[in-house]
């Protein structure tokens, strides 16, 4: 019997190719989209699970609670992890990485390489984590000072071979020293939040620096991981850390030491702190992607349900005959369900083929690397099977019940199908639902796009166009900065040159200050941005009160500072800040008196996800990571060449690296950019699938009304009047969908925009345009069918009766 059901189902598909094509096309789009997103979501959740006991591993984060706000970092003091293990035997292992974010130059046979993906690691690092080794002994590789572990990629880059164990190179980490390669790792899996190309042993630090550096309750900068015995509560770890704080942290540093822990597997999706090893993923994106995937699948499922019921007029007779021939309801339902499962199954197989080819480019597009081999794994196949069953049954069950309940006497005698009235309402509700989802997605796309445009175009308070950033690798040019700048300024295409430690959107130090204007100035701090005196000119930042730095005034490079308006507020200097003094703590811990010479607006130094901070600018100390070079827009290429020439002249052993400020700033919004692209694509697909369903529905409903149209035409209705009558119903559905969608879309947009300190207002226009767009699409879709119906010869329609 089952065989027969399948035969009949296949026959039905063959005999109605148009109907089957619309269904299979829609379902394939839906299932492909869903599986594509499923693969990405699965990948996102796979992070850091390659280690055998990942479930027991935690990382320690630390929060600085400062007057200007709380700042959480993924690092802590070097003593905390070992201290925790001593205090609590349930912490049965720990390991640490340090020295992140520095750049070293590696010298091998007079060849120089720049490397910035490196860490110093504890002895047991390669045993604590299960990164695969190509050669070397994980238990010993990091034991001795000056040991180095390379990834495959790095080994090939430096030595041309992965067979690098036993080779040596020189590097200027801390000081120029010779390092011995003790192990080569397989390239780290991309699904790891820990990424590096090069590891030095932490023992190197112990030998070179004083012995206490690896067990110090001051300082910060250690990515610390520990393993916790199963069944131990996280609260116990926290309370132990609180005890350690009370015992070891002096009173005046208590606010700098507020450790927390995060499970290893949560880091990728739930941790987006400053100083993460690599930018992590975002659980919100995972939610948005998942919702989109489910939406599209539901839309595709509804299409099937709708088309199948709409076609019931044609199948009613078949049902009647089969019942007369002895079929009972269950048998008919099984027949219709097999049809729907076969259609879904065909679409699923097609989808698997499609995503196998698409997953590579798609995952690359969102900066992930998922190969086609991931498609033929158990989870995907299982989910596919589940989809076939859920969609097959879920969307097949209603048509099956509906169709199998026809009374044979009624359907065999008349051409009218019973119950069309009530099912009409159900079908219309489904269409409304589909279009509501589509409209939500259109609006969502528009909002994301608006926000992105806003972030890229918002006046930041400084010039970002035509500013070239040259990285001052290893401070190579710092000692000769004056001559370097003079040399550059000789070139006509270069308008201005300046230097700074920090980069907009990047990191900047938090500096403690004291001020007489603040009553309780304990722990008072500002973001301190170290610049040279040409900075404001180069960046075209206006000093709104007081004056800009002046190279001709010698004290300007030693004790003058410029603050922003937010800092003025924080310092309680609303009555005029210019001329006042504050004390600033240097890195050595001394308090230096500085005079405020000017005030600038609250420029957006930070990315727009974050708010403006109170900060000051000064030429603190001669350390600069970046040169800011303002170029004449007409001579950009020539200028780049000139800057490179000058750089080679001043720092022949250092690589020349540059970027443009505008690109750097835009890259801060890369993940939003990707989100918007992905949402655009899928919104388009959703609308396409929904339209497909509407098209099918329109063809059935106009077919059913062909007689009515005939009569109306005979009575003198014009083509446009008929068109209006036929389109009106569909338009009404879309309008209804809009009413449902608008509040939901508003709520979602609001939720997402809360991620940003600076965000667009959700505009009414966006909503209106999205709604009108959907309406237009719907009307165009149905017009193909309605127009044909309206133009048809009424005689034909009436004669067929």
């Amino acid at each position, binding site marked *: *019997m089952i065989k*027969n059901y399948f*035969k*009949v189902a296949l*026959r*039905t598909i063959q*005999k109605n190719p148009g109907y089957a094509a619309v269904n299979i096309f829609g379902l394939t789009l839906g299932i492909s989209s869903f599986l594509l997103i499923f693969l990405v979501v699965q990948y996102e959740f796979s992070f850091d699970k390659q280690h055998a006991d990942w479930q027991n591993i935690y990382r320690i984060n630390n929060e600085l609670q400062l007057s200007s706000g709380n700042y959480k970092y993924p690092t802590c003091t070097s003593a905390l992890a070992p201290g925790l293990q001593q205090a609590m035997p349930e912490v049965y292992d720990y390991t640490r990485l340090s020295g992140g974010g520095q750049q070293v130059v590696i010298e091998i046979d007079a060849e120089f390489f720049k490397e910035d993906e490196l860490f110093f690691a504890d002895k047991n690092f390669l045993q604590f984590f299960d990164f695969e080794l190509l050669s070397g002994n994980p238990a010993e590789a990091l034991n001795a000072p000056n040991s180095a572990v390379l990834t495959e990629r790095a080994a090939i880059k430096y030595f041309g071979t992965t067979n690098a164990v036993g080779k040596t190179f020189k590097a200027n980490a801390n000081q120029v020293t010779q390092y011995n390669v003790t192990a080569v790792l397989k390239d780290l899996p991309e699904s790891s939040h820990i990424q590096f190309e090069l590891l030095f042993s932490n023992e190197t630090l112990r030998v070179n620096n004083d012995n206490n550096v690896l067990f110090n309750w001051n300082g910060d900068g250690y990515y610390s991981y520990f393993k916790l015995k199963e069944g131990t509560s996280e609260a116990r770890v926290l309370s132990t850390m609180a005890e350690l704080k009370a015992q070891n942290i002096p009173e005046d540093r208590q606010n700098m030491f507020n450790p927390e822990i995060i499970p290893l597997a949560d880091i990728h999706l739930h941790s987006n702190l400053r100083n993460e090893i690599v930018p992590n993923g975002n659980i919100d994106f995972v939610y948005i992607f998942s919702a989109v995937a489910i939406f599209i699948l539901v839309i595709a499922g509804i299409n099937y349900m709708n088309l199948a019921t709409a076609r019931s007029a044609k199948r009613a*007779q*078949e049902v*009647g*005959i*089969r019942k*007369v*021939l*002895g*079929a*009972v309801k269950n*048998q008919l339902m099984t027949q219709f369900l097999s049809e729907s499962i076969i259609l879904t199954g065909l679409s699923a197989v097609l989808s698997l083929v499609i995503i196998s080819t698409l997953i590579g480019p798609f995952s690359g597009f969102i900066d992930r690397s998922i190969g086609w081999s991931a498609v033929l794994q158990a989870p995907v196949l299982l989910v596919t099977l589940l989809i076939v069953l859920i969609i097959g049954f879920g969307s097949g069950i209603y048509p099956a019940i509906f169709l199998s309940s026809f009374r*044979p*006497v009624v359907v*065999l*005698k008349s051409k009218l199908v019973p119950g069309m009235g009530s099912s009409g309402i159900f079908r219309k509700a489904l269409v409304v639902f589909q279009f509501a989802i589509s409209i939500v997605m259109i609006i969502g796309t528009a909002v994301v796009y608006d926000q992105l445009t806003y972030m890229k175009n918002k006046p930041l308070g400084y010039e970002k166009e035509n500013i070239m950033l040259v990285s001052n690798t290893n401070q190579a040019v710092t000692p000769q900065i004056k001559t370097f700048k003079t040399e550059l300024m000789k070139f006509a295409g270069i308008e201005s040159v300046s230097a700074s430690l920090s980069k907009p959107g990047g990191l900047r130090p938090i500096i403690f200050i004291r001020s007489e204007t603040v009553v309780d100035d304990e722990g008072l701090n500002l973001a301190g941005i170290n610049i040279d005196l040409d900075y404001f000119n180069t960046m075209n930042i206006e000093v709104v009160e007081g004056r800009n730095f002046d190279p001709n005034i010698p004290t300007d490079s030693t004790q003058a500072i410029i603050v922003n308006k937010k800092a003025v507020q924080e310092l309680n200097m609303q009555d005029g800040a210019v001329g006042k003094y504050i004390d600033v703590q240097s890195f050595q811990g001394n308090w230096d008196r500085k005079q405020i010479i000017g005030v600038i607006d609250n420029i957006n130094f930070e990315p727009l996800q974050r708010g403006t901070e109170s900060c000051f600018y000064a030429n603190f100390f001669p350390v600069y990571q970046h040169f800011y070079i303002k170029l004449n827009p007409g001579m950009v290429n020539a200028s780049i060449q000139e800057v490179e020439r000058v750089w080679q002249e001043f720092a022949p052993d250092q690589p020349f690296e540059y970027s443009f400020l505008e690109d750097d700033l835009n890259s801060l919004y890369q993940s939003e950019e990707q989100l918007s692209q992905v949402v655009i694509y899928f919104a388009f697909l959703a609308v396409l699938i929904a339209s497909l369903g509407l098209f099918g529905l329109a063809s059935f409903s106009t077919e059913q009304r062909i007689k009515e149209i005939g009569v109306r035409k005979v009575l003198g209705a014009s083509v446009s009047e008929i068109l209006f009558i036929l389109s009106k119903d569909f338009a009404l559905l879309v309008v209804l969908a809009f009413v449902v969608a608008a509040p939901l879309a508003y709520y979602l947009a609001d939720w997402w925009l809360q991620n940003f300190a600076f965000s667009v207002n959700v505009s009414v226009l966006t909503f209106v345009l999205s709604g009108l767009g959907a309406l237009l699409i719907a009307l165009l879709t149905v017009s193909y069918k309605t127009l044909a119906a309206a133009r048809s010869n009424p005689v034909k329609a009436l004669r067929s009766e």
Partner: protein
Amino acid sequence: MIKLKDIDKYIDSKYQRTFILKGIDLEIEQGEFVTIMGPSGAGKSTLMNIIGMLDEPSQGEYYFFDEPIHRMKERKRSDLHKHHIGFVFQAYHLIDELTVYENIETPLLYKGVKSAERKSLVAEMLDRFQMVAKKDLFPEQLSGGQQQLVGVARALIGQPKLLLADEPTGNLHTDQAEEIMKLFQKLNSEGMTIVQVTHSKANAAYGKRTINLLDGAVETDDRH
């Protein structure tokens, strides 16, 4: 075989009750060939459907082989209908998606007949109606007469005790109609009970008994 006692069939609308059948008393013995005639709207088809258990009377009693159909549950009735009654329609009502062979086979599937037995039964039927060569054709590839032959074959495959034919020749040319009626006569002579509805006196002549309906009631009942 069939005993109808005081059968009414009516439709209630808001203000009035419209009778389609009123006070029908009818007995049909096994082996009879009955023709039901009457003008449009007389209730012929409704009576057929009630006899065929596709429709229920509003009132009255219906005994099929002395079993009270009017007191039966849906499933039991459907079972009875499946095993004892074959239908032939004016519009043939073949399933477009199925071949001749599959159309004839379908009732057996619903009766749960085993595959091997199905094969032999269908083969036998194809042979009997001389349609072996056409078994893989679809209905649209056949003439009207051929389609109706398939319809009759399909009605007979389940070896029913009663054959109901609702204007079986209404869509056919005269010679095709004659072929079908001769077939009916032959079936009847082999013992099949047949009830047919027709407008044609010529067709009625093939039967042994003619019942004339008018406005939902039996007007005449002649045996010939």
